């Protein structure tokens, strides 16, 4: 182990000791040592002047940072519902058995840790796992066996078979955004040819709206930001693609990074920003190196840096910040907090980031897809963009399709396409439901398949998961409610506590112990969360439960306990401590469920 003091000193001298840098330093330490040793926190405390407990607070907030050593090989199985449907848990258990290890705990020799993590954005090529930040998609028993072998032998990750790490773009259908390519620098050229007002007018005429799902008018956002007087303005790209079932940014960052950086530079030219940030989700760490190279190439071509494209005073550069396993950081104000090196707690709004964003300066935060669209709009014109889509939703939308269908992958559609069309195109048959916009989205039964993908109807950041008739939708509901429980930042009461209560009730239903009263309780908790939460996470977290209670009541009713009242806890499990103390495990030391049920039925009759 390299001396930690010299490692941290080097880190600090390379990138500075501003508090903004904290999360990035922690990432580097985690990556280097497989955890953040107390010694490291001590060193950061003294050199960055941040209290130790505050640093621990940041470490404990992010799922990818640890205070205790992980294995040399740190494996995280992606645990989205689509990974589940592809059998990820069987493979996880199989790997654990081969390695003789318990999930979540490092093996005694420190060689390996196996655990689960929220959706990694490889849903079209799942089941997938992350190993020390790299992705291995398309897992099967053969791959698992080979992985176990490589770990036992101790083969360094760099010597593993390269095909293991191949992630395909998997573009199944492309439209104007993916097809019509621009030459590097042409959007900047278009910006400089006239003035920034003309470029902004073009975006305004195109009616481009944010592609993250909320659909705020992009030109309006840029104009608000530009018109706010301040020392600095910032451009931030939200590449924290964490919504379960979404993976279009993975593809855009992999194959359209130049267009993205072009769009960010365009925005900088319009709002007057000197500095931009790409907030890259920790799960996409494996894309970092190529993105850095693209940035360097653009600097070398004078498309970033000082006097861009020869225009004196047009200075702009982009830095990449890594997230560390927190879905909430996809919320723009939480993302900004995280950019500032803090816990990703959403800010209160107003004020909005356009006036008070990064370092309290006016900041534009846009989705990857939005910046790419903007870059192309100023090259091809507003009419090119408006030629497809609907009046309220111009242009196209990238959908990330996964689940029960013959051809999962990326599909680009003009806005206004019907859900039915998408379902047919991806080769889905015998469909029970489609979940649009991820865990926070909408559950659609076939009766609603004529609805349109558009801001004015079914709005989505791009996630589109298909469930056929064989699936139990309650498994989906359970996966999502656990996801939200895990990802709630814990700031506000309804999301923090309500989300936990909800998760417990969904588990109760899955185990066949829920009553009608519990279903009413779920609805009540859902409304409290939806109406009173601090940010969008809490507002949308109960949606899968509320949607399915309304549209798929039978998934609950067929599992209801046949009684008016069921204890909230498992009576038999509650006796475990007593059994351990008395050293008994015979039949009479257990509550026998069936006789209880029978006697209850007799009471009723």
């Amino acid at each position, binding site marked *: 182990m390299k001396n930690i003091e010299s490692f941290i000193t080097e880190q600090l001298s390379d990138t500075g000791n501003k508090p903004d840098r904290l999360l990035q330093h922690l990432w580097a330490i985690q990556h280097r040592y497989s955890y953040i040793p107390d010694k490291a926190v001590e060193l950061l405390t003294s050199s960055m002047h941040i209290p130790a*407990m505050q640093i621990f607070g940041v470490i404990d907030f992010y799922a990818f940072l640890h205070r205790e050593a992980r294995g040399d090989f740190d494996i995280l199985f992606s645990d989205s519902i689509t990974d589940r449907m592809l059998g990820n848990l069987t493979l996880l258990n199989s790997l654990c058995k081969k390695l003789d290890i318990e999930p979540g705990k490092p093996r005694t020799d420190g060689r390996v840790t196996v655990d689960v993590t929220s959706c990694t954005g490889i849903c079209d090529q799942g089941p997938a796992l992350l190993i020390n930040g790299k992705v291995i998609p398309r897992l099967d028993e053969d791959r698992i066996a080979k992985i176990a072998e490589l770990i036992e032998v101790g083969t360094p990750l760099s010597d593993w078979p390269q095909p293991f790490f191949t992630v395909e773009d998997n573009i199944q259908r492309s439209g104007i955004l993916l097809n019509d390519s621009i030459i590097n620098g042409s959007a900047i050229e278009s910006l400089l040819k006239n003035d920034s007002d003309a470029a902004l007018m073009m975006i305004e005429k195109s009616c481009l709206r944010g592609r993250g799902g909320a659909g705020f008018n992009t030109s309006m956002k840029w104009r608000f930001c530009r018109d706010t007087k301040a020392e600095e303005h910032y451009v931030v790209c939200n590449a924290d693609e964490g919504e379960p079932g979404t993976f279009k940014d993975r593809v855009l960052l992999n194959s359209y990074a130049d267009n993205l950086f072009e769009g960010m530079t365009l925005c900088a030219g319009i709002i007057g920003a000197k500095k931009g940030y790409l907030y890259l989700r920790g799960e996409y760490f494996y894309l970092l190196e190529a993105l850095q190279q693209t940035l360097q190439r653009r600097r070398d071509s004078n498309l970033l840096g000082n006097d861009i494209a020869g225009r004196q005073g047009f200075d702009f550069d982009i830095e990449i910040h890594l997230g560390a396993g927190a879905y909430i950081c996809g919320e723009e104000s939480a993302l900004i907090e995280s950019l500032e090196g803090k816990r990703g707690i959403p800010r209160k709004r107003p004020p909005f980031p356009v006036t008070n964003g990064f370092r309290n300066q006016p900041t534009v935060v846009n989705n990857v897809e939005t910046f790419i669209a903007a870059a192309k709009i100023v090259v091809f014109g507003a009419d090119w963009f408006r030629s497809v889509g609907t009046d309220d939703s111009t242009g196209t939308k990238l959908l990330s399709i996964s689940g029960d269908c013959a051809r999962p992958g990326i599909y680009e559609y003009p806005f206004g396409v019907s859900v039915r069309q998408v379902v047919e195109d991806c080769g889905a048959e015998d469909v029970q439901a489609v979940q649009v916009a991820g865990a926070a989205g909408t559950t659609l039964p076939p009766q609603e398949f004529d609805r349109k993908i558009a801001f004015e109807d079914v709005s989505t950041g791009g996630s589109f998961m298909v469930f056929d008739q064989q699936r139990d939708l309650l498994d989906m509901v359970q996966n999502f409610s656990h996801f939200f429980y895990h990802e709630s930042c814990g700031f506000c009461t309804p999301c923090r506590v309500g989300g936990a209560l909800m998760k417990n009730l969904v588990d109760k239903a899955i185990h066949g112990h829920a009553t009608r009263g519990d279903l009413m309780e779920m609805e009540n908790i859902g409304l409290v969360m939806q109406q*009173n939460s601090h940010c969008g996470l809490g507002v949308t977290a109960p949606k899968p439960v509320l949607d399915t209670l309304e549209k798929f009541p039978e998934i609950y009713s067929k599992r209801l306990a046949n009684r008016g009242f069921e204890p909230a806890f498992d009576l038999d499990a509650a006796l475990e401590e007593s059994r351990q103390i008395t050293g008994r495990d015979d039949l009479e030391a257990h509550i026998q469920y069936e006789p209880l049920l029978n006697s209850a039925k007799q009471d009723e009759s």
Partner: protein
Amino acid sequence: MSNGKTFKLDGKNIAFQDGDTVMDAALRAGEYIPHLCHNPEFTPHGSCRVCIVGVNGRHFSACTLPATDNMEVDNSSETIMDQRRNLLQMLFVEGNHVCPGCEKSGACQLQAVAYYTRMLSPHYTHFFPKRTVDASHRDIAIDFNRCILCELCVRASRDVDNKNVFSITGRGLKSHLVINSASGRLYDSELSATDKAVSVCPVGAILPKHIGYDQPIGERLYDNKPISIVGDVASEANRENKDQN
């Protein structure tokens, strides 16, 4: 002091100034909006959500909602009261709040707001979390069982006492208050009994020692009058009264 702008709180005209939140203006006008994490001496936080009010059918936390001219604010309909009750019940089951055995009983804001909203039971399933008590400090004790994560001590210690004694760690339901000291306990922290961070706690989490039952049950802050009249535990008036006793 008014610039002629008003909004309606349950039909009553409330004057406000630019930059006021609904809570600011209401409190100034002597109107009570139930709250826990809000304290007018500090920047609004908006985390407990108990101060939610209805505007055009949507709910906002009054402490973070900017007042606008002619807006109509619902502060007492059964819908709003019911939501507040649910939020309070969630806070009760999240921690271990055993009023009969708590030395803050009768002068606790969580308890008083629960009475005000006519909460009759915690309703939800208790989490019964395993939390600790830190009595290592000579003058102050912390019972983490009763912390409601309002972060008033965090803010007071950072912004007023300039000591940064407290912070929050963890995420989601695992979020919890921690002490910035070498041992992680109170005795070697910089906290002292006269700190703002101590007096600002609305519940029985941070307790000054040696005075627990000086004020007998029956004569405590909320024993005879509701919180809507008495105001916050940490309000200036109530602090002065305490000093006189």
